[in-house]
């Protein structure tokens, strides 16, 4: 096994346009992947994340734009000349070959002697916790074992770039957790440049150094998990990252700061803190775990306290989950205390936890 760190290659994608049978799927994507980084492409289905990965690997022809790997534009090269190894969602193991033949395939193509292939495959298998599985049929393996063999096959050729196409989505929850850590650990150890496509937010956040949120064939935001989660750049990203509660607001700016009004509730921001807010009609997004329920006549303090009525209650464990009606909207909120249905109550939301965007932009996310 190799031990040197940072053997990964860099990728620079420039103004990539990709179309499928007349339908434009990627509308000019530009992004850089630094050597040894782990990037997750995240988005709902149909956003183009898989198309981006498949155009990197050469499975999807590029309409225009360039893919520069280590200084060379590979956009016009066939898949076999790109030096990227892919792990497929379907595993794509060859059922007519043994585990040894599957993992050793790439080495055999490169003319590596048989004994060396056997040694490399054995090392790979022991790293993946499958020592001694060389002669098994891949059809006789469990899902998790197949995924490991698929990973072994990709890593056996010492690729600079590892592409992961929703590799964990066919596994059951427990094995998925284990594989998340394993893939991350192997990527760190080998210093590979990894690009991981997923629609699972938590998976992306726990595995990757950097998230790329995609929306309708373009990049909506690039950043560390913290940046994207805490400071979403658009209403779409806020909504996608779990801020699913929506509250219409009116933002008024004055000499004395800014004020936020929704329904009967108003909150004031100190001068200088509301500079980034859009004036006029706006929409606020927030996660259901940042809001609390309080007495409707409690002091608002630095929070926004919106009068609300409890419409439904459930107990998923630990806290109660309520659906409340506030300012004409249905809001989901968690609270530790039990409240009766129909009660009028105050919905307390810390101002800094609101993601506020102009109303004109917000329509896209809904």
């Amino acid at each position: 096994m190799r031990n040197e760190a940072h053997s990964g290659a860099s990728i620079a994608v420039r103004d990539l346009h990709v179309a499928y049978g007349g339908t434009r799927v990627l509308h000019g994507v530009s992004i850089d992947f630094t050597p040894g980084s782990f990037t997750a492409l995240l988005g709902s289905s149909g956003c183009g994340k898989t198309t981006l990965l498949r155009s990197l690997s050469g499975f999807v022809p590029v309409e225009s734009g360039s893919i520069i790997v280590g200084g060379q534009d590979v956009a016009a090269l066939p898949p076999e000349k790109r030096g990227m190894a892919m792990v497929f969602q379907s595993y794509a193991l060859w059922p007519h070959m043994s585990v040894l033949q599957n993992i050793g395939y790439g080495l055999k193509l490169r003319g590596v002697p048989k004994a060396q292939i056997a040694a490399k495959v054995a090392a790979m298998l022991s790293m993946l916790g499958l020592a001694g599985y060389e002669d098994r049929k891949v059809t006789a393996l469990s899902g998790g074992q197949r995924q490991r063999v698929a990973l072994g096959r990709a890593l056996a050729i010492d690729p600079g770039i590892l592409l992961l196409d929703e590799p964990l989505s066919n596994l059951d929850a427990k094995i998925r957790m284990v594989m998340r850590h394993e893939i991350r650990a192997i990527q760190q150890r080998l210093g590979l440049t990894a690009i991981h496509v997923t629609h699972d937010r938590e998976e992306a956040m726990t595995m990757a150094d950097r998230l790329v949120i995609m929306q309708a064939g373009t990049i909506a935001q690039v950043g560390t998990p913290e940046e994207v989660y805490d400071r979403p750049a658009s209403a779409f990203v806020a909504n996608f990252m779990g801020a699913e509660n929506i509250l219409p607001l009116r933002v008024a700016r004055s000499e004395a700061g800014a004020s936020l009004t929704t329904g009967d509730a108003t909150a004031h921001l100190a001068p200088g803190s509301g500079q980034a807010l859009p004036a006029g009609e706006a929409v606020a997004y927030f996660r259901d775990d940042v809001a609390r329920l309080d007495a409707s006549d409690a002091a608002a303090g630095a929070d926004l306290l919106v009068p609300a009525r409890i419409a439904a209650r459930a107990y998923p464990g630990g806290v109660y989950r309520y659906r409340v009606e506030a300012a004409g909207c249905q809001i989901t909120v968690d609270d530790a205390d039990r409240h009766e249905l129909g009660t009028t109550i105050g919905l307390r939301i810390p101002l800094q936890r609101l993601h506020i965007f102009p109303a004109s932009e917000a329509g896209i996310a809904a």
Partner: protein
Amino acid sequence: MTRIASSARLVLAVSLLAAFAFVLLGPILNLALWSVAERWYTPHKLPVTYGTRYWEQVFRPTGDAMASLGTSVWIAVLTVVFALALSIPAGYALARLKLPMRALFMLMFLLPQAFPSVAIYINVARIFYQLGINGTVFAVVLVHTTHGLVFSVWIAAAAFAAVDKDLELAARNMGASPMRAFLTVTLPLAAPGILASGIFVFLESLDEFTGTFFVGVPQVTTLPLLLYNAAMGGNYQVASITALILLVPSVLFMLFIERFLRADVLAKVGA
């Protein structure tokens, strides 16, 4: 009451089964009986004398039957080679590539089957006369290949379509050229279907009568032609034995299909 009903059901089931067995096995039993009847004439319901004289006659090394069996097999093998050489690339193209008018291509292979074969073969025979290849094994192979292509192309297309495209892409991703990926991944995985189509073409060729009659006679004598001649000459024994020989490969093929071909490949035939 229920006992009567259940026994009535049993009687019905047994008689239906018997009727089915008679329809299925009756003709074969008749053939078997004829093949060992040395003398059988009216008004006798069963042969007068039994014996293996005609079996010996057919299997005599110098007999017509062995020679025409050889011709039949040789023609069938050549037909399979021709048909597969065409249907492997054609089937792959139809399964994988986005061809315009794909349905039209599929139908094109069906055309020889769509018209009355006698009308087609008379014209084919005329053309072959002009080319001077009438009465040659090559001419018969050409006719059989055209006839077999619809099956071999359709089955090959289904077999290739049943191979997940990701498996091929994974090979390319590992560094294989398109040809290498095809030979190491796609073809081995489609092999059972291709083999089945080959066997099917082989059987069709072994069985083919009309085309052989028009472009092969009198120089080329295959087993079905021998059967025809024997039956027309009143030699039912030789005709029956020939028919029984022709039956063997068909039964073997059925067993192969049952054993090796996956349902998902069969489901894609003609799709």
